[in-house]
């Protein structure tokens, strides 16, 4: 009986300590800034931005998250050599990291020469398809009293 209780207690303690380790925000791996990494398939550009929520609530954190998302993209624009469209817009950008610690929200975005090429190819494929088969016209009913 005592042996069973002891083993059961041990299991309960193990589960609760694992839960505590997973919970709680720790954004020590995130820092605002930019980074350029050379890899086999070309250059990879990373940008991290931080925003602070006005209060510790879901609504405020959502606003801070949007601010951090845009801030990170603004950082990307400032890196020399970041691939852009002919009209200066970003392409191939994906969000690769997000961390929330209290009222601090960090967002990391990534773009590479390869992902930009993927976005460009995809835009061209869709544009070619729309040229071959244009968007179907939408029928509009005639208005009363038009004649």
């Amino acid at each position: 009986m005592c042996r069973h209780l002891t083993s059961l207690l041990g299991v309960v303690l193990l589960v609760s300590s694992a839960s505590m380790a997973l919970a709680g925000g720790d954004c020590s791996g995130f820092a605002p800034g930019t980074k350029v990494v050379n890899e086999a398939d070309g250059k990879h550009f990373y940008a991290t931005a931080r925003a602070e929520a006005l209060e510790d609530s879901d609504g405020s954190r959502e606003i801070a998250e949007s601010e951090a998302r845009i801030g990170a993209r603004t950082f990307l624009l400032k890196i020399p050599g970041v691939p852009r469209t002919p009209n200066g817009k970003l392409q191939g950008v994906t969000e690769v990291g997000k961390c929330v610690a209290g009222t601090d929200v960090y967002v990391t975005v990534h773009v590479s020469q390869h992902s930009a090429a993927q976005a460009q190819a995809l835009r061209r494929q869709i544009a070619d398809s729309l040229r071959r088969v244009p968007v179907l016209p939408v029928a509009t009913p005639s208005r009363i009293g038009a004649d």
Partner: protein
Amino acid sequence: MLQGTCRGYRSGGVICALSVALCVAVPGRAYAEKTCDDYPYGDEINIEDVEGGTRIIATSSVAVDFDDVDAVNDARDEATISAKAKIVHFLEEGVCSDDEIDKAVATTKSMQVDTKSVQRDETKKKVKKLCNSASAVVRGFVPLASCLTPGKEMRVSVGYKPETLKQAEGVAGAIGNSINRTPPPGATSHGPSTADKATAPSADKPRATGPLNPAPGYSDTKNLDKF
């Protein structure tokens, strides 16, 4: 059955019986309703090169505030649009960040016989405007899978690959050719238009109340496996 299972355990008969009972009861509850806990994708976009182009699976998660079918349907629509928007942002997006600072200074001077005083009030107003925009006419994006955790979240995954683009193009082309061959009769109205029928909601009408219509949790990922 429990007695047969627990026979042979000398002193732990009660604990054994309890454990067996829990083992039967808990999995039964777990299999009754699926949620998004085991959904393979989070709020993310996955891109990979495939033959003929790129395969994309974009997933968006939206909060479901009420455990009611109407709220779930609204969340599903929102998550679908949000997932498609993720792909559109990947294609091309514009970013703007404007800072505007307005400074106003008010200076008040007063002079008396042998004294002079000056008061200066300065106010600064700073407005920061951030925007991130993307828009495109697209084709070939298909809803693939979704899951619901009741009262918590709805996730929808939208996919694109070169085959879906060809299929969408084929369908649009077939419909367009059919309309060109046999144009639909001209639409005319012989009565009030739908716009005239719309009226503002009456302020005197009492709001209908009733119990929520809960939607069970689910996780439908069968299309993801064959995409």
